[in-house]
């Protein structure tokens, strides 16, 4: 399973990288962590004419806080994000999902931006980005473009990134006071992709749900936000019957894929279970969260 031939470029600046993308468009693939791309190359399923290695673009690394968001450079390694106190305190749903991504050695190289640009429908980070309403910052020849996560995932391994754009940064909203989170996942083995996963965020204000973010992974060719369930949760007090009803609403229109790891019926059933478990866990953790949004 040896990689096919390709031309290789290692730009030193973002402008240079964007220039190369503008030149090669869909004939180019961007190499960040490589943990998803290199297997595709080894299997000869991906055949780019040019590989643009962006690992030299240090300006795309880094985690900082600004304007109610945590800004995570696209090239930030997953293990760095995992060790970040800022993310642990301000974006707890992201912190909860990160240790579930593969294994340590994968997270040594894999990047936050890479995972979202690759958009595997069974990966954890796309569901987190969708549930939180993260925003993705792209750099292209004509400048910067910011996209909501809701508009980012278009199809199987397909995003709304234009061929001449580089994903530069992801902005995650800081969790509001009174927020509890849970990332639930059923996987065949520790570290595997989710058969089904749920990113859940609940904000309580005086015991009433003021905001809810629920997004699935593994139920479609893209991560799926359970907007109808979120709407029914808003304004209600947490309770087991409420979560049961939300689980039904969240899953009734799902049409999950079938594969070796689960039938469609299985995924749908498990999705409902994860909603019940996830909402309960999120509500429980919201109850222990202080006014600063930190636990």
């Amino acid at each position, binding site marked *: *399973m*040896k990689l096919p031939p390709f031309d290789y470029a290692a730009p030193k600046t973002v402008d240079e990288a964007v220039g190369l993308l503008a030149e090669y468009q869909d004939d180019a693939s961007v190499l960040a962590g490589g943990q998803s791309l290199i297997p595709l190359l080894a*299997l*000869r399923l991906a055949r780019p004419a040019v590989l643009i290695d962006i690992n030299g673009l240090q300006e795309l690394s880094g985690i900082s806080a600004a304007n109610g968001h945590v800004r995570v450079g696209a090239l930030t390694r997953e293990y760095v994000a995992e060790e970040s106190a800022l993310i642990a305190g301000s974006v707890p749903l992201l912190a909860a999902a990160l240790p579930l991504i593969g294994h340590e050695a994968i997270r040594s190289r894999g990047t936050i931006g890479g995972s979202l640009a690759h958009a595997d429908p069974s990966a954890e980070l796309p569901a987190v980005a969708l549930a939180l309403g993260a925003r993705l910052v792209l750099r292209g020849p004509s400048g910067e473009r910011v996209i909501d996560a809701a508009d980012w995932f278009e199809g199987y391994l397909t995003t709304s990134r234009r061929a001449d754009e580089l994903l530069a940064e992801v902005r995650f909203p800081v969790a509001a006071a009174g927020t509890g989170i849970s990332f639930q996942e059923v996987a065949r083995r520790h570290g595997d992709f989710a058969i089904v996963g749920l990113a859940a965020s609940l904000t309580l204000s005086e015991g009433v749900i003021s905001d809810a973010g629920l997004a699935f992974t593994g139920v479609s060719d893209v991560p799926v936000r359970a907007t109808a369930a979120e709407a029914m949760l808003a304004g209600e007090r947490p309770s087991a019957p409420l979560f049961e009803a939300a689980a039904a609403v969240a899953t009734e229109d799902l049409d999950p894929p079938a594969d070796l790891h*689960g039938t469609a019926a*299985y995924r749908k059933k498990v999705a409902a*279970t994860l909603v019940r478990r996830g909402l309960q866990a999120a509500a429980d953790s919201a109850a222990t969260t202080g006014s600063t949004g930190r636990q």
Partner: protein
Amino acid sequence: MAGILAERYTGASIRRSEDPRILTGAGRYVDDIKLPGMLHAAFVRSPLAHARVLSVDVSAARELPGVAAALTGADIEAMTVPGPDALSTLMGAGGPTPEFTLLATDKVRFVGDPVAIVIAESRYLAEDGCELVSVEYEDLPPVASARFALDPGSPPLFANLGDNIARPRSRNEFGDVPATFAGADRVYEFRIDVHRHQNVPMEGRGCVASYAAETGVMTVYAATQSVHVSKIAVAMRLGMEHDKIRVLAGDIGGSFGLKIGASREELAAAAAARQLGRPVKWVEDRGENLTASGQAREESFDVRAAVSDDGDLLGLDVKMVIDTGSYPGMGGMVPGIIEAMLPGPYKMTALGFESTAVTTNKPSYVAYRGPWASETFVRERALDLIARDMGLDPFEIRLRNAAPRTDPPAVMLTGRPLVGVTTIESLQRVAQLVDVAAFRRRQAEARAQGRYLGIGVATFIEAAPGPRSPDGPSGPMGMESMRLRLDEDGIVVLFTGQMPHGQSHQTTLAQIAADEFGVPFEQVRVVVGDTDLVPFGLTGGSRSATMTGGVALHGARQLRVKVLDFASHLMEASAADLQIADGRVFVRGDPDSGITVREVARQAAAGEFGAGVDADLQVEAAFDGGEGGWSGGSHCAIVEVDVETGIVAVERYVVAEDCGALINPAVVEGQVRGGVAQGIGAVLLERSAYDEAGNCQSATFMDYLVPTACDVPRIEIEHLETVPLDADVNFRGVGEGGMIVAPPTVVSAIEDALAPFGVRIYEQHLPPARILELIAAGPGEDPGGSHA
């Protein structure tokens, strides 16, 4: 003199002599071999399960810079001798012989069937070259299931066979089957399915073949379980004399039955190497290993069980269909072993067994650790299903049916005496270790809280090598040979045809020889892996503990006698008064006298002696297995099933095993645990999956899942005190047992956990989705699996 002279090493968990190189990256596996001028091979493989090959055009591949050759199936045929599969011939499989070529010429018969070989300066370039080969296929209807293969309307895979029956239905009966069933209080009928899964060693198949035109010698560096069997395979296909072939093997990264003989790919690579006059390396990648190396266990069983109202299993009548895949492998031989082992250690008095083997458009059925394992699965599942229906405890039904150890011993229906079998002891011991009563209380409390725990038990025996038979030597493939020599530097060297691939022979055999000869462990060396140096042998069938341990023991004794005879001339004492211990030869009772073994050896090599003195300190030993014996044991698992997600956790796993005398307890325990892990994998994770078109759906490690450190619990092992049968050699094999008995153990536990839902399990593969289906179906009709 009975027993081993000085039990310093045997029975102790001596640290392995293999490990210093293994732990420092100094092991030498076949992909580590680099020869001057070496080229690399890759194969063009069929994307279709069943098709005629209309044309193969390698011209574009040949033009690619760096490609040294691109050869079609026809090209390879022209360089080789057509013939049947070497392993099948060796094992005497019998049955109709399909005609086929090393690389596909007129037909492809499974997705991954090799069609052409491209040889280049690097594997990268060889794969690039493969993409330039263009093959025209004419699609044929795929035979992707045994059911279709049995249909006379299915297109035959092999024209000369005329249908897809690899071995036609044959039936044997033991005892009075009709009377037993007619007279039984109850007759149970069910169908049990075992799914396709496979060996998955961490190192795949591969070889480096190098032909020296000046001498006409072909040297093959192989990953193999027997250098001699590989040599035979190469000789047959390349039409070469045996003395013109040398097969060498270094470290081998596991096999579990896969690497026996030489595969079609290896033979094609060797033929190409001879043609090109440059060494050719072919090492399969994981995709090839998962899709083309071979698979096993796809078997179905229609079972009838005759049972008394007291829970006696009176008889079984079993109809088996085995899916042997496309090209011949081991599939045709498995039913016979299953039939022989089906009664197990139980008292039943009637057995009817019939089997049919079919060919399908899937990879060949290869040997996989305990190839006959389904006999234990079927029998233990049957007992559990009967017990559950009758409200009997699973331990009790087994204790009731196990043959007690009598003198003379009970005889299995199929002929072998159950001499020295400790089934009852192992069942009782494992029940004690687990504390079944305490578990049942915990299980009840958990159920009240909506948690589902279960306990399962299964027992087995294994002919490793089995008891002495009046027909001849014990163990598959008869006598075990060994050459032992005292080297001039005082090292006792053992030349064995064993080919360790994880079994630690270089340690265990040295332990035995060191004790028996009388030198420190470090003064023994075990030589393996060179057809020029070692006698015929094969590592497999769990034979080595008895056969090779035994020949090492007796051979070391013979060598000691010879060395003492020689030393008696040096020391002017009679051999009967001399002893060897701790590397010294001395007069009995006076250990400070005498000389070192090293000195004796030096003198033998350097001196000149008269006609009456034999200074050739070497012996050729052979061992027939002695009294042989059974291995076996009972396993018990405790699982928890999450009934909302179908995820199963194995909470506890306990083994009470009997493999006779232990050479090295740590090695034994490692073998048991590794086998159990594969059994857990088979039930919860592993399936070689095919769709109706014969496409492999488990072609990467993302889909063929093997257990990890989070899937296998601590496995508690107690070694039973065995029944010694032989004056000297009571080591018995243990390599396969874990994998044979773990699947029914785990399935039994899952069924017990799901008992409140009325679940009954008739299959071996239980992924999460299947668990939920079984729960939803409850005691009703099996709704049909989530897989074919």
